[in-house]
């Protein structure tokens, strides 16, 4: 992989290191930067509309962002490993449906509900994990396929019914507050975020994900079981999406055949805003939470400023673009391989296969990228 593009990346990174680390670390920690922006947005909105600071409004914002945060958390694991999971929204919807019907019909309490949601999520995540980790399909196609399958399954499972009677004892978790503005559900979510952050930062598994995402070829040569790590990331993503389904039930107190269909891309957007790069090897669990809160705060602020709901998707889109443009590292990286980001990923995946004899990796006319072996 000694292409001109990679050389360009290396020199770019060196230039970045040359900046004296005095204030720049504050700006480079995406979580801190986004938190600062959240504070600014909240302050401005409160100045304009005092109700914004009301406990119930803040609790509403947090409960809303917790749902996206779970999806973004799982998505972060996958994206750090240089993959993508387009099916998290559908997994969340299916989990909400399964759990919702059990709560509605059998009256199970919160703990079994959470366990059931996690189980559903892991089983559905297993589908992605097998397709990507074992069959080695490109993640974007594999999860696109499972997205169709799972969203169709949502419809088949509900069979026209919907979940609409969730007992108050459960839905109150989203509206009851421990401190002013902090709903119970946020406290229940924090352990998951902290554990994820710890796993990513301090365990061998977590470090392996970064290594695989940064350079799968190098990780493979360093003895990291690349496919097994990728397999696990999709399981984790499914697990968190399943938990997100329970959070969705708590927040919306219902579920139908279209639950979560549109949340895939929002989750990816939240992860990107939180500092996780699609190019792999960068990001973290705290970023996912902060990114989700930021998205919800901004969208709520938009509706407080009497911007029509119609423009909310556009708000998400603009925020994603801003986050990416700000992240000069990911920009220079993809610029250096103009249009080759995903292709380079594919090459690395193929590069792991021992002496793959495909015509493409050995075409003598193009010495540039034929050098994987």
């Amino acid at each position, binding site marked *: 992989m000694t292409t001109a593009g990679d050389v360009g990346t290396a020199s770019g990174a060196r230039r970045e290191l040359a900046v004296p680390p005095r204030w720049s670390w504050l700006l480079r920690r995406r979580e801190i930067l986004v938190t600062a922006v959240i504070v600014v947005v909240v302050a401005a909105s409160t100045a304009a509309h005092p109700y914004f600071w009301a406990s119930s409004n803040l609790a509403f914002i947090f409960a809303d962002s917790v749902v996206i945060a779970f999806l973004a958390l799982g998505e972060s694991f996958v994206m750090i490993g240089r993959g993508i999971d387009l099916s998290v929204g559908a997994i969340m919807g299916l989990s909400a449906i399964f759990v919702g019907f059990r709560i509605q019909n059998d009256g199970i309490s919160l703990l079994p509900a959470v366990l059931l949601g996690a189980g559903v999520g892991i089983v559905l995540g297993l589908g992605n994990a097998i397709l990507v980790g074992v069959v080695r399909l490109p993640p974007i196609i594999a999860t696109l396929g499972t997205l169709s399958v799972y969203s*169709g399954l949502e419809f088949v499972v509900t069979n026209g019914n919907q979940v609409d009677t969730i007992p108050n004892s459960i839905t109150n978790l989203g509206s009851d507050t421990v401190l002013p503005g902090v709903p119970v559900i946020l406290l229940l979510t924090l352990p998951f975020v902290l554990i994820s952050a710890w796993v990513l930062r301090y365990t061998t598994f977590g470090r392996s994900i970064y290594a695989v995402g940064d350079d799968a070829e190098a990780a493979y040569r360093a003895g990291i079981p690349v496919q097994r790590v990728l397999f696990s990331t999709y399981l984790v993503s499914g697990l968190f999406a399943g938990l997100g389904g329970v959070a969705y039930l708590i927040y919306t107190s219902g579920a139908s055949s279209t639950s979560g269909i549109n949340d895939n891309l929002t989750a990816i957007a939240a992860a990107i805003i939180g500092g996780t790069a699609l190019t792999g090897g960068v990001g973290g669990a705290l970023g996912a939470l902060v990114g989700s809160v930021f998205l919800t705060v901004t969208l709520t602020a938009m509706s407080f400023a009497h911007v029509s709901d119609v423009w909310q998707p556009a708000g998400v889109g603009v925020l994603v673009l801003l986050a990416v443009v700000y992240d000069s590292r990911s920009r220079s990286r993809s610029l250096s391989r103009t249009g080759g980001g995903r*292709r380079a990923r594919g090459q690395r995946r193929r590069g792991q296969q021992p002496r793959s004899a495909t015509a493409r990796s050995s075409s003598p006319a193009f010495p540039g990228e034929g050098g994987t072996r």
Partner: protein
Amino acid sequence: MTTTSPTPTSSPAPATLALPGRWRVPGWGTCLLVAIIAELFYFTLTTRQFAGGGQGMLNLTEQFAPTGVLALGLAMVILTGNIDLSCAANASLAAVIAGTVLDKGGSPAAAILAAVAVATFVGLFNGVLVAFVGIDSLLVTLATQFIITSVATSVAGASPPFGFSSSFTLIGQSGIDYVPIALLVFAVIAIAVIVTIGYTGLGRSLTLIGYNPSAARYSGIAIRRSLTSAFTLCGALSGVAGVLLAAYYNSAQPDIGADLLLPGITAVILGGMDIFGGRGRIGEVVLAVFVLGYMSQGMLIEGDSSLSITMITGLVLIGALVVKFAFERNFRQRMNARMRRLRAPLHRDAHG
């Protein structure tokens, strides 16, 4: 392949493999053709309304011609190793624009022009962000998809336009003699795209960019301009798809095209296009459009719901890919190994 001594079969492979549309009999294309014929037979036998004396089968193409046009645009972008997630939203926007122009009393020609122009501009915007600003296409089109959706909803307003003049709706609903106009539009565009990709400099540039970006750069291809053209063309075709949709449904809901994204990408991938770019034939994508289209229409007629068809589509996509990947990976390696074993004794004889 460099480990084996060059065999007569392997030496021309790199040159021809990269370029679609050559006169070789493609294995995957044959599979798709067989699949179409099998589907047509199956549905003709199982459901009475499907064939309709041949005319019914032709009329069904009206329903998936928009998906086909969208898939052709996507195929060009995917050929370069990029992706356009915004094309379906772009089609919706085009439909809404066409509807609004018609609603305001514009002529059908003006409506079509305006719709395609706006969609082309959106494509150009995507292309510039990807090629000149250098953001990953997945991110760019993810973001623009959100933005376009908002714009479409806002333009459509609270009561989206519907009930257009018959001179507009005939594009989607009627035919010349026996052939639906939508199918004709699809055919013309398909031929144009096949020619562009297979036989022009732009097509070769796009293929090479997808196949090997650095080689493309070193051989002096204007990468940025070619990439921008691919996205712009994709935008234009999304616009055409949107016009076909509006004409077929005789209305312009702001989410009218949203359901086209998944089948569109599925058609491109099922058509053998490599998601990492550089490999694939437009002709096979066209076949895949028919495979998918007839499958979903046949199942709809049989009485399945559209969402369970989405599920089947996903299963077909995954299944086809698993088979194709296994085929490519194992079959080729096994063949190479067999060739090597066959040649080994010969070499020993020659040296001994």
